[in-house]
């Protein structure tokens, strides 16, 4: 175990307080795993292109509770009535009036009131095979420190509307030299036929060297539908390690739109398990990186039942000396006959110093499967650049127009035009420049 993992292991909480036995056992198991396997290293296949040097360099420490520097709330990218604001992994504020059938509880409240299904959900977090167990290090750490977070519950047949989940971190006035590692867990339960649009925003208004380790677990009941829009814009030195775990029952739909503008170290593991038949998964995203920013996206879809559909559509524009890692995997398990799976990833490199590591994976163990995948990395189309310049636009304007159009194809899949335009505007603001 390396220095950072050993130090974090020593900082793990010893006492789970007056919690149910299953909860104590869960935390203990997390701690045990973390002590045994530590954090991921580049030797783990799924962490080959992302090292934890930044966290080591910052001397990151486990810190309980939120920092004390007053932090204004993250401004939503579009107007949204119901908002949850999280600061350093803790609930900072909850705003709005929830529709009947939608319940928001802090994890602590949910545990003490014994919400149905919470134990199953928390215990269901999938693990990597034993030989790769260290690649789950952050999840183990998250489980070992389980305390902060939210439960979002949408009752059967309820339309929960749009809900903002905003994440930010701040520094502690007394110990501002400390780089805080905060852990948080979101449990999302959509009963049969329920709908929800979750708008997740990650922003750090203060430049800081903190890292957030967040796990979102979603359980979609039969014919439930979750639209998950994620907009991530951290400061240059901030770390963000997130995992989104989605379990889908028959006929359910999960639609993801992720927009990553990077940070010091940004990693997102997105995993969908299509457990029931005819479930649908649509994963879409764009990552735009400049400077020395880093984003690593690992998206994986497990088709475990018949007649499922999944598509992955990601676009990347990478400039400066930034680095994007993109791994998409689709596994069609035995019995998942009649599955349709599509993967598409295209990238534009704007600089010789920038790096893109993209890898599509596809494994099929079922019959009558339709599958396609493709990944490309290229430069700006010189013909198109000249065409625009010949009409009076300069090189910089041509780059802006072409890269925005390239990424706009992701926004255009959003049904809400207002949201699509707002995100498109954000993309234009951060679009990397030509070298």
């Amino acid at each position, binding site marked *: 175990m390396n220095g950072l993992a050993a130090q974090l292991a020593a900082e793990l909480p010893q006492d789970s307080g007056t919690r149910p036995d299953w909860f104590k056992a869960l935390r203990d198991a997390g701690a045990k795993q973390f002590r045994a396997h530590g954090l991921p290293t580049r030797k783990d296949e799924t962490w080959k292109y992302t090292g934890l040097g930044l966290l080591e360099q910052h001397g990151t420490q486990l810190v309980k509770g939120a920092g004390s520097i007053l932090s204004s709330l993250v401004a939503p990218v579009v107007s949204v009535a119901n908002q949850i604001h999280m600061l350093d992994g803790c609930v900072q504020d909850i705003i709005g009036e929830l529709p009947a059938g939608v319940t928001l509880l802090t994890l602590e409240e949910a545990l003490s009131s014994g919400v149905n299904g919470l134990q199953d959900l928390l215990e269901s977090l999938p693990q990597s095979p034993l030989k790769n167990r260290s690649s789950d290090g952050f999840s183990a750490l998250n489980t070992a420190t389980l305390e902060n977070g939210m439960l979002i519950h949408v009752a059967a047949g309820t339309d929960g509307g749009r809900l903002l989940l905003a994440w930010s971190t701040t520094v502690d006035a007394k110990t501002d030299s400390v780089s805080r590692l905060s852990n948080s867990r979101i449990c999302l339960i959509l009963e049969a036929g329920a709908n929800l649009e979750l708008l997740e925003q990650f922003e750090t208004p203060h430049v800081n060297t903190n890292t957030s380790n967040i796990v979102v677990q979603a359980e979609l009941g039969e014919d439930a539908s979750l639209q998950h829009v994620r907009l991530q814009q951290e400061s240059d030195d901030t770390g963000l390690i997130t995992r989104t775990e989605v379990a889908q029952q028959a006929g359910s739909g999960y639609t993801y739109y992720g927009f990553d503008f990077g940070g010091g170290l940004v990693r997102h593991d997105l995993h969908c398990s299509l457990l029931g038949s005819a479930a649908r998964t649509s994963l879409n995203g764009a990552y735009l990186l400049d400077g020395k920013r880093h984003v690593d996206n690992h998206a994986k879809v497990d088709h475990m039942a018949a007649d499922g559909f999944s598509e992955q559509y990601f676009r990347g524009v990478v400039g400066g000396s930034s680095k994007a890692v993109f791994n998409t995997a689709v596994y069609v398990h035995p019995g998942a006959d009649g599955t349709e799976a599509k993967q598409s990833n295209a990238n534009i490199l704007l600089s010789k110093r920038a790096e893109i590591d993209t890898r599509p994976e596809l494994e099929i163990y079922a019959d009558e499967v339709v599958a396609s995948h493709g990944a490309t990395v290229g430069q700006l189309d010189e013909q198109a650049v000249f065409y625009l310049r010949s*009409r*009076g636009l*300069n090189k910089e304007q041509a780059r802006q127009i072409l890269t925005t159009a390239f990424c706009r*194809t992701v926004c255009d899949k959003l049904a809400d035009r207002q949201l699509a335009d707002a995100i498109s505007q954000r993309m234009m603001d951060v679009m990397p420049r030509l070298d």
Partner: protein
Amino acid sequence: MLKITNLHAQVAGKEILKGLDLEVKGGEIHAIMGPNGAGKSTLGNVLAGREGYEVTAGEVIFNGKNLLELEPEERACAGVFLAFQYPVEIPGVNNTYFLRAALNAQRKYRGEPELDSVGFLRLVREKLKILHIGDELLHRGVNEGFSGGEKKRNEIFQMAVLEPVLAILDETDSGLDIDALKVVAEGVNRLRSPERAMLVITHYQRLLDFIVPDKVHVLADGRLVASGDADLALKLEEQGYAWLEGGGIKTLGNKNAGQVGTP
């Protein structure tokens, strides 16, 4: 307005233009004809400033400016417009948005106020009316999925909106059937004006049935080898380019057309 003197240019180390001289006055339409590989499209691309076309000698003076010193966008802002032989498809960029951005870039360069979307739309409607074309191209991506005819019509539409001083039409007739050709040619004719010169580059005479030039030049092996009025084009149609072999500059007119160039 445009004076090209002893222009030499090469592409990938191969000399294509070998001392081309041409003078075009305001309001004139000149046709450049010639066999494949003569350097016709190279001339258009050199004038527009495409990368990869290296000028090794000669000069091009456009309205008192040394054109070859300018970036492609500066040439456009100064009033040079190239209608592409193969217009580029740019998926996801709205045609109207693109054209407004281009027009405003040019207006800004010239110190004129930029047009807002209302003003721009008014201008677009006016131009569509002049060209007798519908607005169906406006809302699509730039040339995205356009037919050959639509692409060329879109080039002419851009030309109408950008109002260049010098328009270079690079094989605008290629790939068009006769109906599409007529639509495009009619558009060009409506944009003829005493303030606007045009350089019509074509392999075939048929375009010149519809766009009647003031002068016709024959480009062969990197030089203009013959110049004349519109009738020269007819002669080329009749006799092909074979009689040009052997080179030499000939000046042809109506009266002596029959005397020159018989193989």
